[in-house]
């Protein structure tokens, strides 16, 4: 190895401003600004006797096309206004992140138009009969366009999966009572931790037995055990993985995650799992937040969870398991594995010891927004009786926020398909795929036992 001649260099040190810059250079923080900003604006309107409901328009239920047409004819101004607000807010945020507005704007126009169509299709009273669940339709339409229509890559500027799902999760927080998070959180953490640790151990053990490098095994393990592609990237950096390991993990996670979007909801429905139980199972079985929400939303609709008064239990259970039970711990996983990598595995000269501050640096900051949104809404509505809450707060405050959240989720689901180009994916390799699959299968089984047997009563009674 060559040694660098020592030179006097003018360098800038990374001071506190480097840390502060993150608040406009990371998607997590923009999800917080947009999500919490929306909640605050909604609340301001609410306390002044008004509502953002006019802007949070969604297609109405319909049974024939003339009814749908009448809806759009009567509300086209609302859709135009909604589109303009979405476009302005997202363009501002994504420009701050470094994307070009001239790429984002046409891309988002396409995304919004497709989303309106898919949302409207999902409101057809025969949609469930023909299994036209919006998350699945969005995914399939996106995949077809991405893989067969030759979409130019610059359009990806508008197809920001993580940006939309994180914003949606912050908005989701506003619709969850904080007391529910406190009550259900410990069980979610316990269940998710058991599954995560076992899944990681299985993937790591099988991978190393197959002769794969420890760093690749860890990257795959994190992808399967914690939070999918994001975890794989985080751990790849933490352990100093070879560059080619990340694409292997990415491909493997994508294959499994996309397959699970279709399989898990149907399986949960076929097994007659209660909404909360199915949602919890999906929470431990899916690998990425975005894919998991697609699966949870689909199952929610299959189990009748989208009907009024049903409580959206599948999505709530999923969120508690996945976001609170798994996502929050990625920083700790990265820190621990970094220590293991630097002290136990073949040494890579990195010149840096793992620092505990990495736990914070890697913490998925959007979860802060989720918790703050929940705490805020819970606090400001605490004086309402349940009857008044349902009569007043839900239609004018929580309901519109939930509708905007649904839009964010549809943007996300479409974007998953629109950015998944199968021919671009790196080859997963037989051994990595086998190792990951072993963990995924164990994950599904243990997750089912914990959700449907051990903690079944807990998840069945979620929110009751």
């Amino acid at each position, binding site marked *: 190895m060559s040694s660098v*001649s020592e*030179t006097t260099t*003018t360098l800038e040190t990374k001071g506190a401003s480097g840390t502060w810059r993150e608040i406009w250079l990371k998607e997590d923080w923009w999800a917080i600004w947009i999500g919490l900003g929306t909640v605050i604006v909604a609340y301001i309107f609410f306390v002044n006797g008004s509502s953002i409901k006019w802007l949070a328009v969604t297609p109405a239920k319909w049974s024939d096309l003339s009814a749908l047409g009448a809806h759009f004819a009567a509300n086209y101004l609302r859709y135009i206004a909604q589109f303009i607000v979405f476009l302005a807010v997202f363009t501002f945020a994504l420009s701050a992140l470094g994307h070009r507005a001239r790429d984002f704007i046409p891309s988002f126009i396409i995304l919004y138009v497709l989303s309106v169509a898919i949302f409207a299709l999902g409101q057809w009273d025969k949609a469930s009969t023909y299994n036209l669940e919006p998350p699945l339709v969005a995914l399939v339409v996106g995949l077809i366009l991405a893989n067969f229509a030759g979409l130019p890559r610059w359009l990806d500027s508008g197809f920001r999966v993580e940006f939309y799902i994180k914003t949606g999760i912050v908005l989701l927080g506003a619709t969850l009572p904080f007391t529910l998070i406190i009550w259900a959180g410990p069980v979610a953490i316990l269940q998710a931790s058991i599954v995560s640790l076992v899944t990681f151990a299985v993937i790591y053990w099988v991978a190393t037995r197959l002769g794969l490098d420890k760093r690749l095994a860890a990257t795959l393990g994190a992808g399967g055990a914690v939070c*999918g592609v994001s975890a794989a990237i985080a751990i790849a950096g933490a352990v100093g993985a070879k560059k080619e390991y990340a694409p292997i993990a990415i491909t493997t996670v994508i294959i499994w995650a996309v397959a699970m979007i279709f399989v898990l909801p149907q399986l949960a429905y076929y097994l007659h799992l209660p909404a909360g139980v199915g949602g919890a199972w999906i929470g431990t079985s899916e690998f990425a937040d975005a894919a998991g929400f697609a699966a949870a939303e689909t199952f929610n609709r299959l189990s009748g969870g989208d009907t009024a008064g049903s409580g959206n239990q599948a999505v709530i259970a999923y969120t508690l398991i996945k976001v609170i039970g798994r996502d929050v711990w990625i920083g700790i996983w990265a820190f621990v594995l970094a220590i293991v990598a630097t002290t136990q595995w073949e040494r890579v000269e990195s*010149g840096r010891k793992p620092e505990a501050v990495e736990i914070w640096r890697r913490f998925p900051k959007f979860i802060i927004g989720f918790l703050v949104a929940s705490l805020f809404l819970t606090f400001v509505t605490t004086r309402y009786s349940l009857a008044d809450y349902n009569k007043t707060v839900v239609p004018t405050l929580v309901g519109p926020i939930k509708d905007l959240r649904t839009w964010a989720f549809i943007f996300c689901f479409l974007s998953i398909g629109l950015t998944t180009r199968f021919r671009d994916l*790196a080859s997963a390799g037989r051994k990595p795929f086998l190792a990951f699959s072993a963990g995924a299968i164990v994950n599904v089984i243990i997750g089912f036992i914990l959700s449907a047997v051990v903690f079944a009563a807990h998840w069945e009674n979620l929110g009751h």
Partner: protein
Amino acid sequence: MESVNAQVRPQCSRCNSFRGDAKELELLLPGLTSLSSAYASVRSDDGICVRHDRFVGAGSYCADFSPASMRSPQPSSK
């Protein structure tokens, strides 16, 4: 930020071989944006060292450090 004009410890983020720009990483890692993002907090400041073909943290360094502000370092062989 303060400027330091001294012999300072090398750092990957200031090395010629470091690729830490989020947009560039998304191009280097096909499929990343399908279910994740290089703009996510979980990535911290990690990037790719194109010399050693590894993921590295921005604050890491190695003996092959080559300052990005200087285009022609003269490494001495062992």
